[in-house]
């Protein structure tokens, strides 16, 4: 009986356990990265891009160090690489060591010498390791000026040294810092300080030439200065002048289609663009639209390091099978993931060279991919941090890849998951807009395209909706149009026959007559004093209103303003302000230049001349909401025409009221413009001085209290 009781109790416990056992699917427990991830929203406003917090795509999966690998200290750890079998290679360059770790993070071998028949090669001072899919290991033995090629056992296969060729300059320093090999066996070697591009070897290890190279970027001013200098330079000056050289490549990697990706590294602030290039295998031309893309962050940190500016340094890159480019910024210890269209997916990591926590860095030196894991070597901490991909990360990378491949509908559910976890994901809004477009749900596509500032998708969806509307209502639109035209014609005929005056007010009539007969009208205005200050003021106010309306009510495809930062008071300055300034300065100048026009005349002429510009803006407001950006030519031409018309009216009006010749008009106009600049300069100076004075008073107040 007792036994039965015991069995009963055990059974009961088992039942309880089975009943009250739940399970959730969870990931393994690892660290969050102690810095928030972010991305940039593109096309939000005129500034171009805006940093926005995002959900983390990666987490710290593991940290490899000599302690947890149970090996002697990796004192000079400088580089990490993962091969296709996901074995990890840790290069301790200072100590001529290459540690190979398997995908379970167990040490496979610890190579300190490359063996050859009767001779062993050490690689102290090596800076880079690369392993080809056939298992060959390429060690960039920088200090020994060679590339050692060996097998997995550490047996020497070959050595690459400086090629003997006329193409190699005499002063060329063969200091290999990076090697990569494409699927056909061509070897690309980057040398420290070489601005000729990569040295290309054939699969037979023969020198083939230089491949790719950065070009010197010059602004228009720099080019002009250089041209002038060349014209007037003497030999002494010439010998003292420095030649401007392009930046060197600092890292190189090759994708599965043999496209070569290069990283340029540290650049001047003015040249923080195009740090990553995708070169085609043959010519080495950049086929990625990356020249105008800043692959690092826009700002520069001045506060850190006691006021010395921290500048980006994209020093290491890798590329995955979907064409995502992973860049490492050594200065900030940050990893950026870009898609094939140079859109930033996420930025994570950090530490600004002081990272004492897992996931941030003190001396991030290189980056490599191991499957979906991102490995970052920290030469200061002497560790390799392995970042795993979160579910969110998997989703966003998969969905974006599908979208870029045009598989919009396949990406739909994944984007829905992405947006659940991250409301702030612009790529998700863009992806969903595309997916809805593919489904034929154009209204929803428009909604998402607007949310994601995706003007391309918006255009397509809007075009579909507009065309559908037109086809549905074509008969109505046609009828309405015909009736409108007929009505206008009838109205015109009647008014001409019966001599009906549309505008009874003579001053108002003159305003519209001015459009057709500007010489006569401005003459009448001047001679008979028929210009109206009220109408002029109304026109200036109208000009301001339509300028603001054009900014905020223009069609989505045409509007590039960030409502969070837009301020119509600035528009007031650049519209009404300029008009007023013109009037004041023109009066001042023409008074000295025997101009006959009074202030009122100048005001009237200037404000009346704005009428075409106002009309142009109104047309823009209406048609930018109807046309697609691809049909915008008409609008642009019309806008320019209206501005020209405005200037023409201003010219005629000014000549008339001041009784000037053309030459005198041009002279006074130039002087007026100079006067305007001086006034603006004075205003800015007074503003700055008063600001400083207020600041001084505030400081005094704070000091006292």
């Amino acid at each position, binding site marked *: 009986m007792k036994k039965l009781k015991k069995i009963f109790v055990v059974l009961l416990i088992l039942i309880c356990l089975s009943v009250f056992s739940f399970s959730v699917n969870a990931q393994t427990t690892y660290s969050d990265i102690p810095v928030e991830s972010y991305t940039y929203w593109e096309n939000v406003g005129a500034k171009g891009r805006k940093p926005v*917090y995002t959900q983390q795509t990666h987490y710290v999966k593991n940290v490899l160090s000599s302690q947890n690998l149970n090996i002697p200290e990796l004192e000079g750890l400088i580089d990490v690489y993962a091969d296709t079998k996901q074995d990890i290679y840790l290069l301790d360059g200072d100590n001529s060591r290459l540690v190979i770790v398997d995908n379970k993070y167990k040490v496979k071998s610890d190579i300190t010498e490359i063996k050859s028949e009767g001779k062993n090669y050490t690689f102290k001072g090596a800076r880079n390791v690369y392993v080809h899919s056939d298992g060959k290991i390429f060690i960039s033995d920088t200090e020994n000026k060679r590339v050692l090629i060996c097998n997995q056992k550490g047996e020497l296969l070959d050595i690459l040294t400086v090629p003997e060729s006329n193409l190699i300059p005499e002063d060329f320093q063969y200091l290999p810092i990076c090697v990569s090999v494409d699927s056909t066996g061509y070897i690309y070697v980057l040398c420290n300080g070489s601005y000729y591009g990569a040295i290309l070897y054939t699969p037979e290890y023969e020198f083939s030439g230089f491949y790719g190279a950065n070009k010197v970027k010059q602004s228009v001013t720099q080019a002009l200065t250089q041209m002038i200098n060349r014209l007037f330079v003497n030999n002494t000056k010439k010998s003292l002048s420095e030649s401007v050289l392009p930046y060197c490549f600092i890292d190189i990697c090759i994708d599965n289609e043999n496209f070569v990706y290069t990283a340029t590294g540290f650049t001047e602030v003015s040249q923080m663009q195009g740090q990553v290039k995708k070169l085609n295998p043959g010519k080495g031309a950049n086929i990625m639209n990356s020249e105008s893309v800043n692959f690092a962050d826009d700002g520069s940190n001045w506060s850190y390091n006691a006021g010395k500016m921290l500048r980006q340094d994209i020093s290491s890159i890798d590329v995955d099978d979907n064409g995502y480019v992973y860049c490492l910024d050594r200065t900030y210890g940050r990893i950026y993931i870009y898609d094939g269209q140079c859109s930033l997916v996420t930025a994570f990591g950090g530490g600004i060279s002081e990272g004492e926590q897992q996931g941030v860095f003190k001396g991030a030196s290189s980056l490599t991919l191991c499957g979906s894991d991102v490995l970052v070597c920290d030469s200061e901490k002497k560790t390799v941090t392995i970042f795993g991909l979160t579910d969110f990360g998997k989703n966003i990378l998969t969905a974006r890849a599908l979208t870029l491949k045009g598989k919009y509908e396949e990406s739909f559910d994944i984007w829905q998951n992405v947006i659940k976890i991250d409301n702030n994901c612009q790529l998700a809004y863009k992806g969903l807009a595309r997916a809805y477009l593919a489904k034929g749900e154009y209204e929803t596509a428009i909604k998402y395209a607007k949310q994601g500032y995706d003007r391309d998708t918006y255009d397509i969806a809007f075009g579909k909706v507009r065309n559908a509307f037109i086809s549905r209502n074509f008969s109505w639109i046609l009828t309405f149009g015909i009736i409108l035209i007929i009505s206008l014609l009838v109205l015109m005929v009647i008014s001409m026959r019966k001599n009906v005056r549309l505008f009874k007010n003579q001053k108002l009539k003159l305003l519209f007559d001015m459009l057709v007969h500007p010489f006569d009208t401005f003459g009448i205005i001047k001679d008979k004093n028929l210009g109206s200050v009220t109408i002029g003021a109304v026109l200036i106010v109208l000009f301001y209103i339509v300028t603001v309306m054009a900014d905020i009510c223009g069609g989505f495809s045409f509007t590039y303003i960030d409502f969070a930062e837009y301020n119509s008071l600035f528009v007031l300055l650049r519209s009404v302000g300029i008009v007023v300034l013109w009037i004041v300065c023109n009066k001042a100048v023409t008074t000295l230049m025997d101009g006959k026009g009074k202030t009122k005349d100048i005001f009237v002429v200037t404000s009346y001349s704005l009428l075409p510009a106002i009309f142009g803006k109104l047309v823009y407001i209406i048609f930018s909401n109807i046309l697609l950006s691809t049909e915008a030519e008409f609008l642009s031409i019309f806008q320019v025409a209206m501005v020209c018309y405005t200037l023409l009216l201003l010219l005629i009006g000014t000549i008339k009221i001041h009784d000037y010749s053309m030459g005198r008009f041009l002279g006074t106009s130039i002087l007026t413009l100079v006067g305007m600049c001086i006034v603006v300069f004075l205003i800015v100076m007074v503003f700055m001085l008063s600001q400083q004075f207020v600041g001084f008073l505030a400081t005094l107040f704070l000091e006292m209290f």
Partner: protein
Amino acid sequence: MKKVFAIAISLVMIVCLSGCSKTTGGLKAVKFDSEAMANSLQSNIVAENSTYALQWDNSTKQIVLFDKVKNVIWSSNPSKSDEPEVDEFGMPVKTHPLLSSDINIKYVEEKTGHLVTVNSFLGANSAGRISTSLIENGVKVIYYFDELQFAVPVEYTLREDGFALTIKTKEIQENENRITEISVLPFMCSAENKSNNSYLFVPSGSGVLIYPKEISSTGQNFRQEIYGNDLMIREYTQTSQKENIYLPVFGVKNDKSALCCIVENGAESSFMDGTIGGKTYKYSSIYPSLSVRGYDELRSVNYSGATLVTDYYTDDMADIEFTVSYKPLYDDEATYSSMAKTYRDYLIKKEGLKKIGDSDATYAITFNGGFMASKSFLGVPYETVYPLTTLKQAQQVISELLNETNYKPIVRLNGYGETGLDKGSLAGGYKINSKLGGKKQLIELMSFCYEKNIDSYLNFDILRFKKSGNGWSKLYDSAKSATGKSYYPTGFTMAIRDKNNATEYALISRNQILNSALKLFNKTKNWDVLGYSLDAVGTIAYSDYNMGDSYAKANLSRDIENAIKVFNEGNKKIAVSGANAYAAVNATQIFNCPISSARFDVFDEDVPFYQMVFKGYIPMTSMPINQETLQEDALLACIESGILPLWSLMHDYDNSAINFASPELRNGVYSRYKDTIINAVDNISTYYKAIKNAEIIEHQIYENGVRVTKYSNGVTAVVNRGENTSETLLGTLDAGEYRIGGLNG
């Protein structure tokens, strides 16, 4: 004319002189007495009880605790007496002087202005004097650093369960060299680098274990300010974010013995330091360091454009009585589980921790009210609150979740004041934004929660404000930095971690915290608020150099406790976030409990120590799990530690939220999370019902990532947070699964 001139000159003088003012009101240092007699006790027992004897070792000038029952010696010098005196080459083995030092001192060298460190072995044992005298139940040791002309008295007293160390800053003597920091017994709490079955326990975040290891010759150090960084110290950039140290307790386990150390007084002004894996020391250790002076870092640009950095220390010291107690634990009690119990017992006995007990809720929801969005009217920009969740919508969501799950949540309303989630006037301007429902809707919601017996808390920030108003002035009522001037902390831009001046805010002066709480309580008396949530008081720590008693964050716990008491005495429930020990023990609810540590490189294994201390006493919820990187893992962490999972929700979302200065609005739209919440709550509620009011009596970690939590009522939770399927005491568990045992008692 002369009068005007005289007045103008006087004004200029006042202005100039005021620029040279320094903060005053702190403790004036006693002058160093170089002629003082240095008495010396012979090596002997200085105090004794039935279990322990406190001994003074005059040869090493160190204190020793002898456990008479267990026959174990606890010394501040961990070097073993049986260690060889010569190495393998016959050369004498030198012990690092730090191992023989009871205190390390950082001071500002008068001549150079540099910060220098000296240890007591070199500065007092060798180049100075050590004076000892008997005091009640112990010994007072004065370390005279004759060359440097300062002296630090330390009292060691025997207690029933161990011993304690006390430093009174008012007894510190100094002349020109100014002491800034004192580290005590740096190797008392240490483990040999090569030892097995040892670990150091650090209360970083939820708590963490460090396994001894050899890293390099000097090892790796880490440092965290107890209760969080002092916000009154200027921060110029932000390299990363760190979980705070919420509890002033640390410890070490060495095989079958352990030491639990508690910073009983002066924790606010202290740091937790660690020296891990140094080959020269042979030991890894944890110890506290006391800041005795206010500090600020000043930067200025000189005429050539170079930035000059000046470390500014106050002339006066903070008046602190710093006490650390050391309690030995043995055998089965030599675990971090027992350390948690020891610390909890301390809180009950000394800090008044009471058993509030858990409610019927099995999950928690934070509703985000609104945020200040930039909008424009005809192109003219203005800021207005964008409603993310109105009070009516919050009520609808609660009703829906009640209907769908049959389980009650704990509700927290966040960002319902005048400026929503953004900082504005103090305590949200004592208003409920009309766009979010206003006072009328709040009363309706509170009445609904009362009827349904749902714990609900309305969040207010009574410490931080951006603009003056309601009687609070940003200039006059804000805390001052060590320079005596107003300082307003800011957030940082996410991309370059530089200051974001748009997020600048003021901290209420420390002597106004009580008034701030009182004003909130009085202004909201007729709002029918069921519970107040005071987020900031649990996690924010700062000094105020308006008054002498709040230098170097001193007495922060007193000020916060007084503020919380206003609500306790008004019979209102009070919730805090985080939360630091002083706030947690006085609260009826803790939101946003840490579920991980600060993840320093030297840290090895996170443990739910925080939860082990408070579970069964104060109800707790996790951080918003929808904002965690690994959301499913965060849910597992909740199950492992017995705290309720919390979701942070909003009803609506608008793209203008991308401009919000912090990341909390990046997710949590209710319609998208509804199913996730309902499924999770259905799964976990039975478990949370079963562990209601139960304490955690044991927590274990296995190598394969399996973690076991045992409760006082017999319930056991096993979670597999490892990578692979594992055998556990409750059967086979796949990675990411959990299982509960003992539900039937």
